[in-house]
């Protein structure tokens, strides 16, 4: 069986600066794959390249058999790949409901209303605030909205860029539980995190990125137990 997402020898640069220096990884259907690494490792760059917002210098990105490197960014979500970006990036002047509906922009089917209800079931606070501008929300609420918005496209695979960034431990737990819920509901997940503990605990597979290269990979458990990861990311020595 071939992987749902297969990234091979990906190189991405900003002008002369190489941010991603030839990485390969894959995500199979039903998995939660974690990509961890410190600041500036190239995690966001990788996700933005998969989504078509950046174009690679070389390498390939194949999602469900389609080469994404030539697909315009706005056509990628339609293929079943959603991206909840770093910093949440909700539309601040639009209401919660408008944000969610924009998540379903690529769809024309009749199921959008039903999925709106599903998003509200997943995060009841969003329903309470459905007519409020999203810019007034706390970080945790914005993260829930960003995830709900991404799910509104009914993705086969969801990419999350640091969903726990800046959240309280409680809220972080909430978000991570949701990741497991979404997986159980059949969504494949590529999770980018600095919080290695939380990300690896749930991961079927993990990759450690350091200055543009993958330096370690294995199952979530293997990485959690590896000395290198414990030293570098879990503050143990």
């Amino acid at each position: 069986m071939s992987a749902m997402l297969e990234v091979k020898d990906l190189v991405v640069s900003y002008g002369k600066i190489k941010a991603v220096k030839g990485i390969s990884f894959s995500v199979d259907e039903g998995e939660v794959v974690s990509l961890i690494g410190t600041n500036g490792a190239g995690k966001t760059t990788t996700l933005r390249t998969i989504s078509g917002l950046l174009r690679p210098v070389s390498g390939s990105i194949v999602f469900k058999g389609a080469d994404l490197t030539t697909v315009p960014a706005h056509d990628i979500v339609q293929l079943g790949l959603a991206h909840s970006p770093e910093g949440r990036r909700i539309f601040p002047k639009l209401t919660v409901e408008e944000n969610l509906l924009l998540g379903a922009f690529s769809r024309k089917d009749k199921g959008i209303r039903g999925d709106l209800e599903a998003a509200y079931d997943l995060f009841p606070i969003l329903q309470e605030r459905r007519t409020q501008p999203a810019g007034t929300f706390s970080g945790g609420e914005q993260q829930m909205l960003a995830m709900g918005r991404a799910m509104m496209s009914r993705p086969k695979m969801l990419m999350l860029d640091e969903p726990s960034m800046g959240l309280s431990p409680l809220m972080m737990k909430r978000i991570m539980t949701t990741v497991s819920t979404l997986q159980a509901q059949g969504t494949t997940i590529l999770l980018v995190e600095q919080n290695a503990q939380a990300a690896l605990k749930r991961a079927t597979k993990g990759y450690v990125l350091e200055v543009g290269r993958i330096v370690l990979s294995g199952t979530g458990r293997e990485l959690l137990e590896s000395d290198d990861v414990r030293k570098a990311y879990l503050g143990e020595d």
Partner: protein
Amino acid sequence: MEFAQQLVNGLTLGSLYALIAVGYTVVYGIIQLINFAHGEIFMIGAFGALSTWLVFFNGNTSVWVLPIMIIGAIASSVIVAVLMERVAYRPLRSAPRLAPLITAIGISVFLQELVRLGYNNPLLFLSTWNPFDFPSAKQKVPFPQIDVVTGAAFNVGGVVIQRSTIFTIGALIICAAGLFYFVSRTRTGRAMQAVSQDPDTARLMGINVDRIIIVAFVIGATLAAVAGVAQGLQITNINFKMGFLAGLKAFTAAVLGGIGNVWGAVLGGLTLGLVESMAVQFIPGTFGGSPWKDVWAFAILILVLVFRPQGLLGAKVVDRA
């Protein structure tokens, strides 16, 4: 009484500015470009209406002709605006800010000259072919005076209300209502707001940003075309330079209201029109009267830029990353 009269005059002028100002502000809101050629889109609209009349209805001034003239105006403005975006601005999308700005000024001059030299001579130096006998646009061209809309003025308790005033203010009300509906209630309108707030994330939602940019140009051109017709009806003639000062004033109105904010453009337009009219009437001595009205208009702009740079309705501009 004088006050009421100037109120009417100011609102008329202001409605015209507002209709044009929306075009500056929607385009700026999406791509942060001051489209200095937008005044010419207004001028093209006026000539488009005239051309429609000359081709299909020459001599006929019945009121039912007017809607078709408006459609002709909108079609002309929209076609020119979309071509302008495609040919001149899109290739410069990732160029430094100054490049599209200078290009805009170039297009502005180009369109003026094109109308001046080519209106009655569309093939220019190749031939003198002029199938519909269009007049030369090197000087003022009379604009058709349509029944009902341009007849005798109404007098309401001493205040003179021209019929073209009613047309202009009515046009603004209809356009503003349509725009409100479009922006806040339609799928494409929501997508437009999303692009103006965060273009990259909008693309992640599946929104084609190039298409939204075209929509912004189409909206601006549509309202400018309506303004072009209103102007023609009001002052009974049009000319190839009419977009210059009107464009500059409308741009001022857009900045006054807060550039990027559609309602700011409407408010800014009306405010500017009122300031001009009131200044003409109520500022005594040397600095009053109509020769000084443009000075007051731009004085307002400078005051706003100094004390409230984000404009009347603009949010504080946070430096965009």
